[in-house]
């Protein structure tokens, strides 16, 4: 387990705080500007999903170091309604809020590893990892 820090998401401005934290951590790990932008954008999407669909939750950022591999993990967790159909959410263009429907599949493309744990009525936990190359 690496160094972990977190931001609680309650308002729209907390999304900015989470993004800022992610950018700083990504810088510390040694990511370049393009990957920094990818990571902050992914955080932005995940944090906004928490804000829009769960109302409250948190974003945790963890610096990773496994077998000489360095990376960063974004863990977005909430105790919201859960995602009813994960497969549908991962399709491009699917949105229940009138948005672009690019958020979840977008995050998957922005990051290297992507994992969704969700249970109806219990909440959602999304883990996304980017490795430094």
């Amino acid at each position, binding site marked *: 387990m690496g160094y972990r820090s977190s931001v609680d998401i309650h308002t729209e401005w907390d999304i*900015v705080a989470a993004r800022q934290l992610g950018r700083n951590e990504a810088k510390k790990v040694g990511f370049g500007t393009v990957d920094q932008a*990818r990571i902050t*954008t992914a955080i*932005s999407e995940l944090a906004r999903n928490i804000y829009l669909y769960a109302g409250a939750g948190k974003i945790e950022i963890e610096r990773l170091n496994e077998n000489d591999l360095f990376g960063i993990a974004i863990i977005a967790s909430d105790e919201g309604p859960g995602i009813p159909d994960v497969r549908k959410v991962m399709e491009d263009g699917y949105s229940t809020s009138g948005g*672009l429907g690019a*958020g979840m599949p977008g995050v998957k493309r922005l990051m290297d590893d992507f994992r969704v744990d969700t249970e109806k009525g219990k909440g959602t936990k999304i883990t996304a990892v980017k490795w430094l190359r």
Partner: protein
Amino acid sequence: MYRKVPQFVETHLEEIIDNWKQRMKDEHGEKFFHIMPEEVIERTSRDFADLVVSSLTEETGLYEEKLHNFSERIVRLGWSITLVMKAIENFSDTLYDLLRKAEILDDSNVAEYFDILNNWIKPLRQEVVEMYAHTWERTVNLQKIALQELSASLIPVFDKISVMPLVGTIDTERAKLIMENLLEGVVRHRAEVVLLDITGVPVVDTMVAHHIIQAADAVRLVGARCMLVGIRPEIAQTIVALGISLEDFTTTSTLQRGMQEALALTNRKIVEVDEH
């Protein structure tokens, strides 16, 4: 009791203040006295002691006015609320210790003393907290207004061409403002081409992109064209990864190139003037 406490405060003022200062020093170290000039502390603690006395001796109206002025001044000094709260607490602790030592307080009348204490310390704390909250609310509101003024202004650059530079984070509220100013400005300046410059937007996620697309659609409805300029390389890559289609837009990397295209669209171009 109601007479003895203020009397004691008045006669032992120096001792109380010295002990209180020592207590603050013990708990917060010298740094507390470094942030604040000696004379300010001296005057404030004297005023504070005076306030304690007057809370016990004077009529309520006069005391409330004094209290209000006192907390207003404290807030204006810009000390942290935690420190001020600590100072109040320490002051009452100091007073308690000294009263005990002087044997004005003993086990028989301690309850009465706490009654008195409650009567002055509660309103004082409340007043200070309220004053801080009020000041913060005011500051936040003013900053909100300042931010709004900076938010989204449409600048007419040439005849038929306007630019809206976007700087900073775009939230829902700002997105609305951008849309309104954009449409109103396009109509007012009779613009045919509007350049949305996102050089200063740190992150373009799906929500920001969505708002931009909607704004561009709306601009089209009022008969103008919207161009997206200032797309930095890293933003271009994240937009592609997100799978956002901006095909309906003309997009350029810099405002300068966008301006050239906008001039071309309105059948004009910039030429160098030959002086000879």
